């Protein structure tokens, strides 16, 4: 058994620097913190939102229709799919999310003024989804479009953010 060094006579005993007790104490604290971290991980994993199962109209692949169904320069609303299918006058398709990028309201297309006008705080977007009037901070999100065998399909699984319109975003028919 190892004895602690005896202090010089006449002085109070010196406090031990490191004992088994202090080591075990520190070990317990460390393990306790690890346990706490594990608990935090378990709780957040439980609470994390699951990806919702795709419905027929939204959250999956939406078959919009045949290419001929959409005249050039037309904007067709898909309310259940939460997007607008734009057939640009110069050709090509854009699937714009109908969710306003400001606070989440649904933006309808205004045929007379030829722009998307959000009813909540009057954000305005043009045919390409770019911001014409604030308070929206960025253009409308895009959904990937595929044109195969003359059929237009829109992938509504996850919207794509962009800072501005680019010709490369258009899918040619």
């Amino acid at each position, binding site marked *: 058994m190892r004895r602690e060094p005896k202090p010089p006579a006449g002085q109070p005993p010196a406090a031990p620097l490191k004992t088994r007790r202090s080591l075990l104490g520190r070990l317990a604290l460390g393990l306790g913190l690890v346990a706490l971290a594990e608990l935090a991980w378990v709780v957040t994993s439980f*609470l*994390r*939102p*699951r*990806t*919702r199962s795709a419905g027929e109209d939204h959250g999956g692949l939406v078959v919009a229709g045949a290419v001929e169904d959409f005249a050039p320069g037309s904007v067709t*609303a898909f*309310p*259940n799919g*939460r997007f607008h299918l734009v057939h640009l006058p110069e050709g090509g398709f854009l699937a714009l999310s*109908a969710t*306003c990028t*400001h*606070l*989440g*309201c*649904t*933006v*309808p297309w205004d045929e007379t003024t030829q722009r998307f006008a*959000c*009813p*909540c*705080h*009057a*954000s*305005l977007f043009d045919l390409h989804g770019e911001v014409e*009037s*604030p*308070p*929206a*901070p960025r253009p409308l999100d895009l959904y990937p479009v595929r044109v195969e065998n003359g059929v237009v399909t829109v992938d509504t699984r996850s919207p794509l953010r962009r800072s501005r319109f680019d010709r490369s975003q258009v899918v040619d028919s």
Partner: protein
Amino acid sequence: MSGRVTGCGRRVGIGRSPAYNARWGERVERDADHQDHAGASLLRRVWRSAFPGRGIPRTDRDRALATRNTALLHLRPVRLPARTLRWTHTFGLGGSSLVLFTFLVASGALMMLLYQPTAGGAHLSVTAIEKEVVFGPLVRGVHYWSANLLVLVLLAHVARVFLTGGYHGPRQFNWVIGVSLLLLVLAASFTGYLLPWDQLSYWAVTISTGMLQYVPAVGPTLARVLKGGTELGTETLVVFYTLHTTVLPTTLVVLMAFHFWRVRKVDGVVVPPPRPEEVGGQPEKVLFLPHLLGREAAQAAVVLALVLWLAALFGAPLGPPANPGMSPNPAKAPWYFSGFQELLVHVHPVLAVVVIPLAGLFAALLLPYLTVDDEPAGAWFLSRRGRRLAAVAALTAATLTPALVALDELLGSGSAGAPGWLRGGLLPLVVLVAAVAAGYRLARTRFGATTNEAVQAVVVLLAVALAALTLIGVYFRGEGMALTWPWRA
């Protein structure tokens, strides 16, 4: 063992000291009427075992004993300072909020029997309560009006505690608990707002959670956790319903118990200073029974009457079912968030959604620890000078806020002005901080205010400003969030 047993179980007679017998002996005689002998009827014996008390107390001593020995009353003080009974001291706001809370629990529990927390069934089940259930509209009305009154009463209660200085000294932590309670009640109100699943609630929650997106880093994740996904749906309803009916009420009850306990531990509410005619000596104490209990019961009855009257006359609103494809114009947040929504129109989202609310929360929680403890408290507005300063601050905020809103309206591009982070973020923040600091300095130097009086003035300034913003947001914003007259909004 010899000796008689008194009505409260004490043995008297042989084996006890003379002093003991002298004190308790007399009770034996009085208790004789209440003792149960074999001749007592079954009904009497059952009643006496459930309620072993001495009946309705008629003497002061009996009243004191009743307070101690009754389950419902034993947490209350037996005696309390007479000066705190003054109605204009507290207006019974704390007690009224507890009463409103019990109405909410009762009406809520009744509706839980009928409500369905699904996107398909929510509106239908609420319509059923409204159209088919006997007294359904009344229950809904009680719930709706109790909820709105509760938020108002709580804000008034916070104001009262603040303005009477009831957050110093041993009451510091109780203030912190109180602020937490307020936040939980707002959360409960917000989660309940979505449950009818009509156009109003769907879009109010859409934009309120939309505001969360602007919180840096954690915002989008926080919004997704709250919504149970990327959009509002049944998952959202289930999350909100669970929070609203289980998590929040339980937490509220626990915290309230703690809150009331802390009030008891400091011997009640902060004591107002004596009126000129009362000066001298210790505050006179009166019995809880009947002086405080009587007042509390009377106020509870008035609150009940008011809620029932409002519920019967106006009921709870129910709009058309939620339509994700069509946002109403305008789409407004619940009124207690309107102030921040109004702020959003003028300043950068991060300032309106993150910086200002967080700063406000921090200041509110730390308030008791940032003020001086040993200045006198208990009087409304602390002193005559405090009253004057508060009036000046309130007037300034009440005139300056609408003026600034109107100015921003003229200068900016109307309600569609999207401020960048410099003009809309940094600039207003700097101006706000400078105004607060200047106001504080002005109060201290020109008015000669004490620290607490100056802090009070600054808080009144900011509170009235937020109230003005809330009023503007609720009554003066119409289509497209443009400024309109209230009768058109």
